[in-house]
């Protein structure tokens, strides 16, 4: 059995206080092996996005432990968390989250700007290689508003890849795309999992999308169950 790259132990996440407390995650235990492709399937509001945010350190759990590539993210200060995210995690969001005033090229390269260990030339080479990989080289000087939804998502994938992280988190990556474009995006993600051996965790409410994954986890009312 391969080494788990993501481990969740008795993770709970609650929002609100007192009578208004809502439990988004309930005693979640999970191990994801390095190189796996896992889909978390569940209806909207079931806590699957919260699970992704907790796994990526974007939100702290109310209790429990979250280990990402042997680093306990629950023990890491908010100040040090960006470094962990930059090194270990790539994100692809439903709403793309591209910076409007940056071109496709700059959106991808912006991940590398804070890195003093890479020269300007190395940053450019990496960005161009990723643009080629997501087939956006010819549209590199376009701003997000000049790109279609599928193209914006490819830029977002490129941005997630450019730091070469071992883990890719995808939050409804095809939610804002038509079915054909969505399928192309999923093929890119599946290809990254196969060729780069990236661990992919994808959350979705769509059963057809979950078929791209090697394993599926079902989530309902904050409780996680392995489906296959």
């Amino acid at each position, binding site marked *: 059995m391969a080494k788990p790259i993501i481990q969740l132990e008795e993770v709970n996440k609650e929002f609100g206080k007192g009578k208004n407390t809502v439990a988004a995650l309930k005693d979640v235990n999970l191990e994801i092996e390095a190189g796996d492709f896992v889909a978390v399937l569940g209806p909207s509001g079931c806590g699957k996005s919260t699970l992704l945010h907790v796994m990526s350190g*974007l939100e702290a759990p109310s209790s429990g432990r979250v280990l990402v590539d042997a680093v306990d993210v629950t023990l890491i200060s908010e100040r040090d968390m960006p470094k962990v995210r930059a090194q270990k995690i790539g994100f692809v*969001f439903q709403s793309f989250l591209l910076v409007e*005033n940056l071109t496709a090229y700059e959106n991808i390269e912006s991940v590398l700007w804070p890195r003093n260990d890479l020269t300007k030339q190395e940053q450019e080479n990496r960005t161009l290689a990723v643009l080629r990989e997501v087939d956006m080289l010819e549209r590199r000087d376009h701003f997000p508003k000049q790109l279609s939804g599928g193209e914006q998502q490819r830029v977002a994938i490129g*941005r997630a890849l450019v*730091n070469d992280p071992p883990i890719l988190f995808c939050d409804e990556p095809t939610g804002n795309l038509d079915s054909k474009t969505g399928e192309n995006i999923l093929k890119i993600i599946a290809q990254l999992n196969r060729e780069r051996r990236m661990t992919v965790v994808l959350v979705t409410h769509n059963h057809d999308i979950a078929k791209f994954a090697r394993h599926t986890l079902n989530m309902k009312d904050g409780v996680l169950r392995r489906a296959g």
Partner: protein
Amino acid sequence: MNFRVFFKSVKFAYRARMRVFAFILIYAILYIIVARGLTTSPGDLSYIGLAFIVATIYAILVSQFRRRDISIFKCIGWDNSNVMLLVVGEVILVSFTAFLLVFQVSVEILGLTAYFLGVTSVTGIWSLIYVDLISMFVTLFWIIVAQIPGLLLSMWRATQVPPMRALREE
């Protein structure tokens, strides 16, 4: 300090044309008012107070307008020192561009006055805009001083933006 992030943030700020150009104009007017105030009534601190108010309002607005970008950059792994440079870059760009604008306009006024009127002292309506070299650098110094509290406040505000904000606002 990461100079690459700083220079990118300056370049990036120029793309927010409406906001940046509007504030370059406001800062240019501020330079003229403060320079004239400091020249005509040297002991009056109200002009420096005015510079402080304008600079603080602008710094707060920058951190407010940049919230989405800041939270996205935090999501992709930028730390606080880098996101602070985003705000610093824009504030420095605006204040120095406004300074250069007033400098250039004053040089042009002096040149045109000398060429057409044959005098080296600026009078009439042009004297309302013209700022002499010494006053300009004194004003620049005071505006930089007045800028510091607002800049620190906006940098602090940038560090307080949670990365989750971008996701919640979409």
